[in-house]
């Protein structure tokens, strides 16, 4: 604000105090100390998150199963672990193709004036709180899907995925996965879009010049270029889906039944959703076990996110490598 103009000089240099040597000497180390300290604080916070979760969860892992309210902790968490991975996998399966489509639309199909409003609309989806998604899922989406589920169950029931008793409420694994897919759509879209936009223009033009149609150009240039970026975006989306709590807690009629069936009302719950449902009523014996399941979730999301980041940075490395190669 007062970067330019004479008033900075007169304001800062005229009063002698601001030029006093001791103040100049003190200011820099203090300010640097705050900056470095904040960086360290990040480390401390993360260490604390891991440490407190581990400390609170230890009793759940070492105690005799008979003394624990939910029995053996690994046995307790297994169905939820399955539910978490299964629902997130399904969500990813649905979200990735749509996200790639939208990202391509924004980067290579939409008219210039339309591209940023379209991106904004997709970002709006990311802004909706998860509890609102839950409310919408249980009230609007689930009932709307019931007729489709009944049709699937009646006509395609021989496929194991669609087997079992079709839920009358629509609060099934498939509904939960659809809601999750909608929720992770924006992040996958925006990351993919950015990679697609970075496609070298010369390569695109070269492809066009060889007579490729737009779609052929995308297949030859844009998708190969953006592949690792899309994979890493999908991994980050997966991380989101794994940890999503409220929408699943409200939409899914979950229990401890390990099954691949999509349309029944007897589904495996997810770890996060189970914590949200059980925690408010949990007593002091149950809390450590719930925290232990939270620790499992933390480890999984950590691994998935790291895998995503590793792919991105590997991608950046390869690009830099290629460029250096070309220039060298």
């Amino acid at each position, binding site marked *: 604000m007062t970067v330019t103009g004479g008033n900075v000089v007169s304001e800062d240099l005229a009063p002698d105090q601001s030029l006093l040597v001791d103040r100049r000497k003190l200011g820099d180390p203090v300010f640097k100390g705050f900056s470095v300290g*904040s960086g360290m604080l990040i480390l401390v916070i993360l260490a604390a998150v891991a440490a407190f979760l581990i400390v609170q969860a230890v009793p759940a892992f070492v105690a005799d199963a008979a003394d624990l309210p939910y029995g053996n902790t690994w046995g307790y968490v297994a169905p939820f672990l399955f539910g978490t991975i299964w629902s997130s996998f399904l969500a990813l399966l649905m979200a990735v193709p749509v996200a790639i489509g939208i990202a391509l639309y924004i980067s290579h199909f939409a008219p210039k004036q339309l591209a940023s409003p379209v991106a904004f609309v997709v970002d709006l989806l990311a802004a909706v709180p*998860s509890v609102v998604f839950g409310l919408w899922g249980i009230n609007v989406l689930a009932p709307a899907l019931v007729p489709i589920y009944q049709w699937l169950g009646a006509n395609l029931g021989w496929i194991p995925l669609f087997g079992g008793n079709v839920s009358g409420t629509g609060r099934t694994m498939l509904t939960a996965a659809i809601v999750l897919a909608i929720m992770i759509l924006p992040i996958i879209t925006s990351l993919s879009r950015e990679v697609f936009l970075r496609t070298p223009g010369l390569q695109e033009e070269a492809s066009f010049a060889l007579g490729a149609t737009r779609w052929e150009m995308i297949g030859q240039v844009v998708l190969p270029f953006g592949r690792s970026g899309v994979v890493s975006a999908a991994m980050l989306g997966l991380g989101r889906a794994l940890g999503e709590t409220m929408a699943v807690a409200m939409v899914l009629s979950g229990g401890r039944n390990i099954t691949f069936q999509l349309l029944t009302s007897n589904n495996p719950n997810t770890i996060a959703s189970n914590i949200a449902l059980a925690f408010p009523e949990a007593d002091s014996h149950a809390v450590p076990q719930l925290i232990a399941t939270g620790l499992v979730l933390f480890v999984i999301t950590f691994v998935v996110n790291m895998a995503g980041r590793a792919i991105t940075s590997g991608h950046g490395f390869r690009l830099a490598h290629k460029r250096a190669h070309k220039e060298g």
Partner: protein
Amino acid sequence: MTADAQPDAPLGDQYMPRMSLTAGQLPKFTDLGLLVISIAVAAALLALFGSFNLVGAILLGGPLFLVGIYALAFSVEGRRRAVNRVARYVIIGAFVLALVPLVSLLWEVISKGLPRFDWQFFTETKRNVVGEGGGAAHAIMGTLVVTGLATVFSVPVGLFTAIYLVEYGKGGPKKVITFLVDVMTGIPSIVAGLFAYALFSAVIGPSKSGLAGAVALTVLMVPYVVRNSEEIIRLVPNSLREASYALGVTRWRTIVKVVLPTSISGIVSGVILAIARIIGETAPLLVTMGFTDSMNTNALPAGGMNPMTALPVFVYYEYTRPGRPQQAYFDRAWTGALVLVLIVMILNVIGRYVAKRFAPKINR
């Protein structure tokens, strides 16, 4: 523009180039016309089976249109262009598909939230309210208190970390901090809640309080503030810093007087967007803050249990544990959801406006 205008025109005729360009191409309005026809046919088919509805007609008409346009383009333009056309409409279809839930969600939230979107909802609490009436003043207040505290905690930490990453950090430590911020971004919100709960139980025993909720939200908010601020501070041109150093200004005064004022609009906008991100968080508050029907503005865990309600938690409990008549509780839940969506949208708009309106003109 029809292909049979002058099929046997002699070479050198001035119409020849135009004709050869349009020959073997579908006329301009084929796509739109075919789309309308496909949806109409789908609607007619559905009506024939006695189950007409608009959504079904569009869902059935879409694939019909794709098949139709492929066949038509294949016969006139050849396989490659036909594939290109279909790919284009599949991609546009993906965008339309994403619009469906957004529009439906906004419509439901607005139409179901409006009945109780009244003065009472914002001025009264739910204390001693059974059935109809009452409001969410306590929940809105709780959200303001907790989000405010989380902002107060995370902005200094996040901003200074960003300053460290851009201005001071180098080599290994910088990489480590960047990595840790990435890790922090990926922490599931419920895990942040469990951490805050575990922290407070370790220090003062099992407790529920607004402060614990604020700590949980801080864990979630710090990485957003770091990311957003870092990006903006990095944009400040080095020439500004060097000009300042050349005048003999110390490093920290350069940061405070040159770097931060130049990037302030981006930082403010980043903080607002970070608030918008966490203000709708439910799970961590469910775990850490408990639930009450009364107004409580004291976030300290006085005497262990000092529950406070935030708006998202209010929405969750109104919907999942209704009393009688149920509708009164559902109405309050939807209005709460509407207020939440409004808050988030307004914050998003303000954030983007601030970034645009007060952006410094760096490229002078």
